[in-house]
């Protein structure tokens, strides 16, 4: 079984509203894809994604696996800049190691 990976540019992500962004990600993940976002999601967006995911959990879709780097502070420590975020279906993706600068994940076909 093939697993598709979508690498989404920061420009593409920034052109979408929050709702569009979350819908776009979840639709991709529910189709079985691994979605990698340049620039990442803010922690608020990640929380909204978890909330949206929970409304769509079913027997066939148990949820998502999400990994990202902790946000970096910028602009004199006032604004948090998010970095890369990886999201995949929990059925096929599993994070095995993670620290502030490294994410190791295994992807296995069902």
């Amino acid at each position, binding site marked *: 079984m093939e697993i598709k990976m979508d690498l989404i540019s920061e420009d593409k992500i920034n052109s979408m509203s929050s709702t569009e962004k979350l819908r776009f990600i979840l639709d991709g993940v529910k189709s079985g894809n691994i979605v990698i976002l340049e620039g990442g999601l803010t*922690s608020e967006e990640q929380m909204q994604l978890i909330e949206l995911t*929970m409304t769509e959990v079913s027997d066939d879709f*148990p*949820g*998502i696996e999400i*990994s990202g780097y902790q946000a970096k502070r910028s602009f004199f420590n006032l604004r948090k800049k998010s970095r890369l975020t990886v999201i995949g279906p929990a059925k096929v993706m599993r994070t095995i190691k993670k620290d502030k600068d490294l994410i190791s994940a295994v992807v296995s076909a069902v």
Partner: protein
Amino acid sequence: MKLKKRRKGILSRLLRALFFRKVTAKIGIYGPPNAGKTTLANRIIHTFVDENEDIGVSTEVPHETRRAVRKEGVLIDLKSQSVQNPYLNVSPDSNVTSTTEQKPREGKSKLKLDIVDTPGLATKIDFHDFMAFGLEEKEAKKRAKEATEGVIEAIKWLDDIDGVLLLMDATEDPYTQTNIVIIGNLEARSIPVIVVANKMDLAEAAPQRIADAFPQHTVIPISALKGENMGELYKEMARRFR
């Protein structure tokens, strides 16, 4: 639009804190499933309310708490006998009492709080996980559905909470996305948080890993089950949530 909303949230929080100070703050106990949230809530109730009263049932089955439970008007009294009991205040790992290296200030010894025990936050809920604990498929699916609703409820409670005890299992890797997302949200909303490294009584517990992962926050190692180092946690609660 969203930024505006968040700014408004922080501003109203500041205004409320300055001019409309609440008599009783609502403190949410948050964390991933099986971190010991209900065990901690029960410990607090046993210590300060009634030693025979439970806020919820704690078992090894994940998502046992699937609805947020609020206990109103819990009076945290640092001078009560159960807090003063030296056995309960022993910290076997004194190096990890606080990452901020500041001693909690001794404030007033009493603090009234509402304690909200929330369902565990998770990004996935698979009914097969419940079947592994012996539940029938129908019951496992029902429980999984309730657990998803519980996660949503816990997230919604963040809009109405004044402070958070964020529980992490000290035997597990703290660098999970769930922990990072909760902390990021609390920081964005300017909600005071104490990170609680639970299960310090277990040999494989490593509270220092939690302190290293979240150096910007105070980390208090405890055993909610055995009641170890609870005095230190109550002191920090009195300092942060007043």
